[in-house]
């Protein structure tokens, strides 16, 4: 769609935006403070958003802090954002029952409820675009993912408060959001600049009847985003790392990481682009019915590489290597770009604080092996 001029939404008008998002029976999902973290939940009131909340993130550490800012998006991210809304952490694919005439298979998922989500960052939109390529771009598509994506309306927010673990500027996926949204917000103390990224986003903006922002407001958004870029201290090396990483399959650094890595799978659970899932049969007690359930899986699990009862990746060195070589090298072949969008969650939520950017740097320092 053609570039539309942004408009200004005063802070006390935020509820009107949420009300518009909730029209037509849509469920509105947004960030809320829960259990010491920011999680995405169903909301109805602007007051539920995390006003005056900042996140302090370091390797292995996530803490929320509070001050007097009126802003409600003055943080970088929580452990999850949009991924669970399109790629369900657990879902029943089909049911089967058995009688004298055989097995009767029946599809279970109904039409998904429409969802409008607010507070999605550039890193997560870039990861969503990769998941769309994975689940919808090849020969066999995932119909559940497709139905949920079609029913999702996205209000993204530029990220003016990157965490210490963020490196989206080096992957080119943030801190400003540039694509894959219906509406994008830039937050100022007094309100929000809104711009549309889709026809339905433009229609919603038009329905709010807003005026253009001042030149000073424009400038402040620009300045804050420039500051958010320069505030990022971590980075991935520029360019395509595919060959450099695949050439180091036997590098000694993999064993060094394995001495720290617990293979807990936290990094894959919080990664917005990781797409692995496992299939499980869950029979009823009498054995007459069964459900086929799909749940998120991790390449750090022992079972992930099972072949005839043995794990192909039977030590942590091989599992960490699988994760990193896939994310930063294999994705180039599969999807035309790296699978990392710089959100930094794998660094924050690693219980021993393994830092992907440091491990890549250490790996590339050595000669191919």
């Amino acid at each position: 769609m053609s570039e539309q001029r942004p408009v200004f939404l005063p802070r006390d008008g935020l509820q009107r935006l949420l009300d518009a998002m909730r029209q037509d029976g849509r469920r509105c999902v947004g960030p809320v403070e829960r259990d010491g973290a920011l999680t995405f939940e169903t909301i109805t009131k602007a007051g539920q958003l995390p006003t005056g909340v900042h996140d302090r993130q370091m390797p292995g550490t996530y803490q929320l802090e509070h001050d007097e800012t009126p802003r409600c998006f003055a943080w970088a991210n929580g452990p999850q954002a949009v991924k669970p809304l399109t790629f369900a952490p657990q879902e029943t694919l089909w049911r089967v029952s058995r009688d004298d005439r055989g097995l009767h298979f029946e599809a279970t998922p109904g039409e998904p409820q429409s969802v409008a989500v607010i507070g999605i960052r550039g890193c997560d939109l870039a990861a969503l675009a990769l998941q769309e390529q994975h689940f919808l771009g090849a020969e066999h598509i995932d119909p559940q993912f497709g139905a949920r994506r079609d029913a999702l309306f996205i209000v993204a927010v530029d990220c003016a408060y990157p965490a210490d673990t963020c490196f989206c500027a080096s992957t080119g996926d943030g801190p400003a959001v540039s694509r894959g949204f219906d509406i994008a917000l830039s937050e100022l103390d007094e309100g929000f600049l809104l711009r549309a990224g889709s026809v339905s986003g433009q229609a919603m903006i038009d329905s709010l009847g807003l005026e253009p922002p001042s030149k000073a407001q424009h400038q402040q958004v620009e300045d804050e985003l420039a500051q958010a870029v320069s505030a990022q201290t971590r980075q991935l090396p520029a360019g395509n790392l595919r060959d450099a990483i695949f050439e180091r399959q036997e590098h000694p650094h993999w064993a060094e990481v394995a001495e720290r890595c617990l293979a807990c799978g936290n990094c894959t659970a919080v990664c917005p682009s990781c797409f692995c899932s496992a299939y499980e049969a869950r029979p009823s007690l009498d054995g007459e019915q069964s459900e086929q359930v799909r749940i998120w899986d991790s390449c750090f699990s022992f079972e992930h590489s099972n072949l005839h009862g043995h794990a192909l990746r039977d030590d942590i060195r091989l599992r960490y290597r699988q994760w990193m070589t896939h994310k930063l090298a294999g994705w180039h072949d599969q999807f035309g770009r790296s699978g990392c969008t710089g959100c930094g969650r794998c660094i924050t939520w690693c219980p021993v604080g393994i830092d992907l950017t440091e491990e890549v740097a250490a790996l590339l320092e050595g000669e191919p092996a």
Partner: protein
Amino acid sequence: MILHSHMPKQARVVERIQESQDIFTLRLQYPDAEGDRQYVFAPGQFNMLYLHGVGEVPISIVSDPQDDHYFDHTVRAVGRVTKGLSLLRKGDFVGIRGPFGQGWPLAQAEGKDLVIVTGGLGCAPVVAVINYVFRRRERFGHVTILQGVKHHDDLIWRDRYAQWAGQPDTTVALAADNPGHDKTLFAGNVVQLFERVDIRADNAIAMLCGPEVMMHFSVEALLARGFEAINLWVSMERNMQCANGLCGHCQVGPLFVCRDGPVFRYDRIAEWFFRKGF
């Protein structure tokens, strides 16, 4: 809406054949004409077999695509699902999703000599190809079949090998680490068989199936005999769960074995082939 590639159709067991102590063949048929009509596959492709309440396993299709109204799966009872499948009897039902993946390059192989190398018990996918070739014998050049097993008892389908050996312009050589008293078996492994047969690389295609270590050394033997990597094809096994290229378990480097394979042209997988952990 859910697609057939995600949800099984039921198929009936019309025959069950015990091939060896732990290997059996299920002959299956779709009860409805619609399922039967849409069933088109190529040798080397596989189905997901669902055992009610237990789970699914990927199994290659061993029968010929022109065998109307039924299809065969030869299975070794090793895990939870395959042991359960081994208990099925005529008239029982399984769920089927498929066929999936890329099969053998049979159109490309027409007019050429074929070298078919198989080891261990992973011979079902190449039995499909051998049957396919002999039903259309005039389309192919010289056929060399090399098979190795650990123990002479593992060599199922002995009668078929004898039958193939009697075909014109065909070489069959069998090896067993432990040949027992069977004088027709070479005592050794399949790679050593290369020393005992005459293989010409010009205008030939090789198809390999079995343990990766066997395929690795067979690839080396074939490259040493002048084969180009683009004329070598290998059939891979990995932990395939969704079979749609979505669940991620079967990846070898950037390749999804279920979708890009299970049969690969060797040069396309060489970067990760026989590398522990991929």
